[in-house]
C-alpha cells in the first residue's frame, strides 16, 4: 500500500468518524452563516459600496468557520489519546500530515461551498456566471488555509488555550491568502473573468506550494515528543 493511499486511509477515517456525529460540520456551517448574518447588519443592502465589502464578509466567515473545524478535528484525536496510537504506527509522519490535510481539506471545502451558497442567496449573486472561477478560488484558498491550519492545530492541540491560540497563530499567517481570496473573488463578483484576477491566483498558488512543503517538513517536529 503506497504512501498516498495510507494518507487517504487516515483521511477516510476522519471523514467517516465525522459523518457519524456530524458535530463538527454542522457547527462549522452554522458559525459561518452566523458570521455572514452579523456582518450583514452593518451593511445596508443595495448600497453601491456593497461590492467592496461582500468578498471580505465571505472570507471572514470562511476563516472563522474553518478555524472551528480545524480545532475539532484534532480534538477528536486527543480523545483516548488516539493521536498517540497513530504515532505508534510504522507510518511516516508526513503521511499522517497528508491524511489529516486531506480530511481537513474536504471538510473545509464543503463548508466553503455551503457558506458560499448561503452568501450568494443573501446577496443575489448570479451563480451560473461565477461558479467556476469562484470554485477555483475556493479550492486554492482552502488548500493554503488547510495546509498551514493542519500544522498549527497539531501545534496547539495540547495547549490549555487551544481554541484561542489557533486563531491567534493562524490568522496573521493567513493574511496573504485571505487578501488574495477577497480581491480575486471581488473581481469575479464584479463581472471580471478569472484572468483579471490572475495575479492573485498566482499568489495563492505560490503560497500553497510553499507552505504545503514547509508544513510537511515541520509536522514531524510538531507532534513528536
Amino acid at each position, binding site marked *: 500500500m503506497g504512501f498516498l493511499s495510507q494518507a487517504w486511509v487516515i483521511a477516510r477515517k476522519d471523514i467517516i*468518524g465525522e459523518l457519524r456525529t456530524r458535530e463538527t460540520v454542522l457547527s462549522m456551517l452554522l458559525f459561518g452563516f452566523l458570521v455572514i448574518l452579523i456582518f450583514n447588519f452593518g451593511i445596508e443592502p443595495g448600497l453601491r459600496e456593497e461590492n467592496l465589502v461582500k468578498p471580505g464578509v465571505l472570507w471572514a466567515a470562511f476563516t472563522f468557520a474553518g478555524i472551528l473545524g480545524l480545532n475539532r478535528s484534532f480534538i477528536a484525536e486527543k480523545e*483516548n*489519546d488516539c493521536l498517540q496510537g497513530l504515532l505508534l504506527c*510504522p507510518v511516516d509522519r508526513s503521511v499522517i500530515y497528508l491524511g489529516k490535510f486531506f480530511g481537513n481539506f474536504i471538510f473545509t471545502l464543503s463548508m466553503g461551498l455551503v457558506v458560499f451558497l448561503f452568501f450568494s442567496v443573501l446577496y443575489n449573486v448570479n451563480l451560473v456566471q461565477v461558479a467556476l472561477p469562484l470554485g477555483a478560488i475556493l479550492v486554492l484558498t482552502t488548500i493554503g488555509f488547510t495546509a498551514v491550519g493542519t500544522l498549527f492545530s497539531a501545534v496547539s492541540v495540547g495547549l490549555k488555550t487551544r481554541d484561542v491560540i489557533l486563531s491567534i497563530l493562524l490568522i496573521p499567517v493567513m493574511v496573504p491568502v485571505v487578501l488574495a481570496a477577497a480581491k480575486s473573488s471581488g473581481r469575479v463578483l464584479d463581472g471580471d473573468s478569472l484572468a483579471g484576477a490572475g495575479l492573485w491566483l498566482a499568489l495563492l498558488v505560490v503560497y500553497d506550494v510553499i507552505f504545503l512543503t514547509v508544513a510537511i517538513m515541520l509536522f514531524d517536529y510538531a507532534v513528536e*515528543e
Partner: protein
Amino acid sequence: MKGLWKYFDHFPAIRGLDVELELGRFLTVFGPNGAGKTTLIRVLSTQIQPSQGEVEVGGCVLPGQAYRLRRHVGVISHNTYLYPNLTARENLTFFGRMYRVPDLGDRIKTLLEEVGLSGRRDDLVRTYSRGMQQRLSIARALLHDPDIMFLDEPYTGLDQHASRMLRDVLKTLHTGERTLVMTTHNIEQGLEMCDEVAIQVRGRLVFRENVGAIDRAGFEQTYFDHVGKDFRWDS
C-alpha cells in the same frame, strides 16, 4: 539501555536507568505512582524521546531508528487508542491498514473472537463499556503480531471477565519468542507469569531479579521495603 535519563523540564522522571532484557523474556516492573513506569514504557515504545542515555530496543537505536522499530511493537495502556465514533471493525481495519497487516479481514475476525467481541463488532466504540474497550484495545495491539509488547498497567479498570481474558491472552503471548514488558501495581497479577521482576522507585530501578530467585509469598514485603526506603511524602 544504559544510563537513561528523561527530564520533563528539569524534572527527572527517569534517572540513570540501566536495564537489559533478553528477547523473549517477560519482565514485570512494579512501582508506586509517580515512579516513572509509564515514562519508561513510553520511551521504550518510541512515544517519547530520551533526554540522555543510550536506548536500544530490538536492535534499533532510539530515537534515530524508532521508525524501524514501530512495526514490531505493540502497546497496551490505560488509554485505549480507539476512535469512539468508529465501530470496532472500522477501528481494527484502520490500524490494520496502518500496520499493513496481511489478510486483514480474517485477522480481524480471529482477534475479535479471541477477545470475545465478535457479536458487537459493528457497534460504535463509544457504546462499549470500559472492559470491552480494553479488550478491543488488546485486539488492536495484537493486530500486527508484534514481537515486543509493552503493557502499561493493563489490568486497570478491568472487570473480572476482561481480567481473565487478558491473563489468557498473556499466557498465549508468552511463548519465548515474544518479549513482554509490563508495569503494574498488582503484585499477584504481576508475578503470575513473568520471567523477571523489577521495582522502580522515583525514576530508578532499585531491584531486579529472575522470578525464580525470589520468594513469591514474601515479595510484597520486599516491595514495601524498597518502596518505603525511598518514599517521601513531599516528593
